[in-house]
């Protein structure tokens, strides 16, 4: 008897209004394998998995679990047929213990104690079986991100999941934590569990999956054996054309210091110190890349330099100190000093999503006298300028009247980049330039950043993607827990060394 596939989807279609998120998708995942689903943002990966987990109902198509046709109207139904999901953003109660989180929604009876003690036993055996050790009595808020993710996996296993879906699981992990996660997944596979891994990172697909399906614009373009493909082929399938995965760039010719930071301290709203004495410098004509796991002070560094978080210490721009608090410390005064800023979160900071593209094209520079005529704003001039910017940065569709939220992530980012780069800043701060951006646009965005460097500007790049840090940086600084762990030359370091530094192990100890 041949085994039935663990998951089989036949002809799944789903539309959100005029947007066809999934078009006639068929997929077959065999039990005991790791199946990767790869595709650009907006390709429909998450929609497909949400249908499988009962969040959305497909417009048409059938779901078969272990060979049986199954209706999944809600997530309870998904759990009962053995599907577990680990979301990109964890769904844990922060002030509950690990144990309490695990039984949440799976309590057996009105009293908690029996469920808790049963869970404790199960947890212990799971921990031994799969290298999934977590202190059951620790509060979730005190756990590292990697451990929180383990709690999510344990939650699914506790509910007897046979099929585990992981949505972008490594986005928040250090390379070492990601390696550990992959060992866990391999252990699960060895036990006959089926794993679906959703990701946009080609490297992970190549490293761990058995088969891989590629999605593009709502369609499944290919399903191949991982051993029979290559990253270049997959990228081509994702984008629909040949893609340069490496950016060409000449060696940097750095000039004088543009930005000098000495002993920078920043305290968050609740008094938590998030920058603990950062010192660094960026020279004209170089890209300083700041590597680190999200949440180690990179965002705060950008906020301080961008003028919207107060700090103490010294920051000099072209040799002249900047105010780090008070009336003259804001986005306007920073821009006046020649600092451009492409923020990490373009949807909540860089753009007003309900503003038309042309209104966004001057956002932050809207007080420039060029855009005023008397007491009114010169909207005609702004629109004309926006048209030109969108043309030069290949923003599609090239319609300045369209609201920002109607552009794809990559095109939104191009609007922000066009605005900041065309002001010709002496220093450009860039946070996560290609987060949520499709591969095709990544190439273009990287080229623009390098062109700005070649024009002799200083660039401070923050990214959680090590590949991006390596591709762009002329020097790399690693941040951990509000400190700079050290500087490295990209040609003389490797991911392993940076990974250790990102986990707080100093360069000397790592070497």
């Amino acid at each position, binding site marked *: 008897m041949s085994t039935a596939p663990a998951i089989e989807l036949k002809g799944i279609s789903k539309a959100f209004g*005029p947007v066809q998120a999934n078009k006639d998708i068929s997929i077959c995942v065999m039990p005991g394998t790791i199946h990767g689903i790869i595709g650009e943002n907006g390709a429909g990966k998450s929609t497909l998995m949400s249908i499988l987990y009962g969040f959305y109902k497909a417009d048409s198509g059938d779901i078969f679990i272990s060979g049986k046709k199954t209706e999944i109207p809600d997530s309870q139904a998904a759990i009962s047929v053995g599907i577990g999901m680990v979301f990109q953003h964890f769904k844990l109660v922060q002030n509950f213990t690990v144990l309490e989180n695990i039984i949440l929604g799976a309590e057996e009876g009105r009293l908690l104690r029996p469920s808790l003690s049963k869970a404790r036993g199960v947890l212990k055996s799971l921990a031994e079986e799969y290298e999934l050790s977590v202190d059951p009595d620790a509060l979730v808020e005190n756990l590292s991100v990697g451990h929180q993710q383990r709690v999510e996996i344990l939650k699914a296993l506790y509910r007897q999941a046979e099929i585990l879906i992981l949505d972008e699981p490594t986005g928040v992990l250090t390379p070492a934590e990601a390696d550990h996660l992959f060992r866990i997944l391999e252990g699960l596979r060895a036990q006959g569990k089926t794993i679906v891994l959703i990701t946009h990172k080609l490297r992970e697909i190549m490293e761990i999956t058995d088969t891989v399906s590629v999605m593009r614009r709502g369609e499944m373009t290919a399903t191949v054996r991982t051993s029979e493909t290559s990253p270049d082929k997959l990228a081509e399938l994702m984008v629909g054309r040949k893609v340069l995965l490496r950016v060409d760039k000449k060696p940097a010719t750095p000039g004088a210091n543009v930005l000098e930071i000495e002993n920078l301290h920043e305290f968050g709203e609740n008094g938590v110190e998030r920058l603990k004495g950062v010192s660094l410098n960026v020279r004209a004509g170089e890209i300083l890349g700041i590597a680190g796991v999200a949440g180690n002070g990179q965002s705060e560094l950008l906020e301080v330099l961008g003028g919207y978080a107060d700090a103490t210490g010294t920051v000099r721009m072209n040799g002249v100190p900047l105010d780090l608090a008070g009336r003259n410390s804001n986005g306007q005064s920073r821009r006046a000093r020649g600092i451009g800023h492409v923020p990490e979160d373009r949807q909540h900071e860089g753009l007003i999503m309900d503003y038309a593209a042309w209104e966004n094209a001057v956002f932050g520079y809207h007080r420039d006298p060029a855009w005023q005529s008397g007491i009114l704003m010169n*909207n005609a001039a702004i629109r004309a300028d926006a048209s030109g910017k969108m043309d030069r940065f290949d923003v599609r569709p090239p319609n300045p009247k369209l609201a920002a939220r109607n552009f794809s992530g990559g095109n939104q980012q191009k609007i922000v980049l066009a605005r900041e780069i065309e002001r010709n800043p002496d220093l450009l701060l860039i946070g996560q330039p290609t987060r949520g951006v499709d591969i095709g646009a990544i190439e273009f965005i990287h080229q623009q950043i390098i062109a700005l460097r070649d024009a002799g500007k200083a660039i401070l790049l923050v990214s959680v993607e090590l590949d991006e840090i390596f591709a762009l940086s002329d020097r790399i600084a690693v941040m951990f827990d509000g400190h700079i762990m050290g500087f490295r030359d990209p040609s003389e370091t490797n991911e392993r060394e940076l990974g250790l530094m990102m986990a707080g192990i100093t360069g000397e100890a790592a070497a």
Partner: protein
Amino acid sequence: MDKMPAWADAVLVPLISLLLAAFLSALVILAIGESPVEAFSLMVEGALMRSSGWGYTLYYATNFMFTGLAVSVAFHARMFNIGGEGQAMLGGLGVALVCLYIPWPHWSLALMAASVGAATFGALWALIPAYLQAKRGSHIVITTIMFNFIAAALLNYILVNLLRPMGAMDPATARFPEAVTLPTFQDMFSTAAEPMFRGAPANVSFFIAVLACVAVWLLIWRTRLGYEIRAFGHSDTAARYAGISPVKITVVAMLISGGLAGMMAINVTMGEAERLIMNATEGAGFIGIAVALMGRSHPLGVFLAAILFGFLYQGGAELALWTNIPRELIVVIQALVILFTGALDNMVRMPLERVFLALRRSPKTTSPVQKAAE
């Protein structure tokens, strides 16, 4: 892509809401044994078919334009100013002081000064909640609504103890001097042969309200301040990134909002009562919320919604006068309109969006694949 065309959003949604409200009102009128058709024709007759009816409708509409604009401006900065009532009361005080204590040679000068006085007092009354919101994070909804009560108490005190003429029994100021009497529509449009707007309180401040609509439109969509107010309203994090001061925008938007609400007093206090009385605002500050919601915070929408509510007010008064429909029921009808156009907006919008999506999809996406699947 937008879910439905702009015209549907601006016209169809309020229209359907209005029809639903009218339908329910008809049921209510039926239930107490009166004829809804008769009631409706009486309302139209009384509010729209005679020039004096229009005179009342536009008088009420003037109030609602000011308060509706006030709420709209605050909405654009994502603040909910429920304090229009109190701000309008204090605006009345500003008007009274200007009219009583300065000898004016001509009403036009007095009107300009009274407008400034009304706006200043209204704005200052909004300043305290705005400051508390900006600096202390006290929620503007809570503070503005509490300031309504404080305004009423303060005004009561001032009228009874300070401004009441010797010997007078009611809490009101003395009558304003003749020189500051505003020309009514009757004065302006009547000819000897054909009297118009007879006895109606609509007056020249209606035109100030229309000017205010234009000014607010310019402010919100054509000036840098409006750009910043809308930016802050859409996303305070993005505003922070751009260097727009949240404190400044909160305070300035609320000052403008309070000023507009205060200006309502030139219509009621200077144009109609010609003295400052208690409860001159008669809930117009709250109606302004419904007007702003129905008008989508756009001055043109506010203008139209204000006239609609003016019609409801005047038509309701006619009903109370000529039928056995009790006064309370008219309040119910007004409440139904507010409920459907304001609070239950999404109830109409969502199905309508679905209809438009279905309409848009049906012609082109019947792809061969789907046909085969059927």
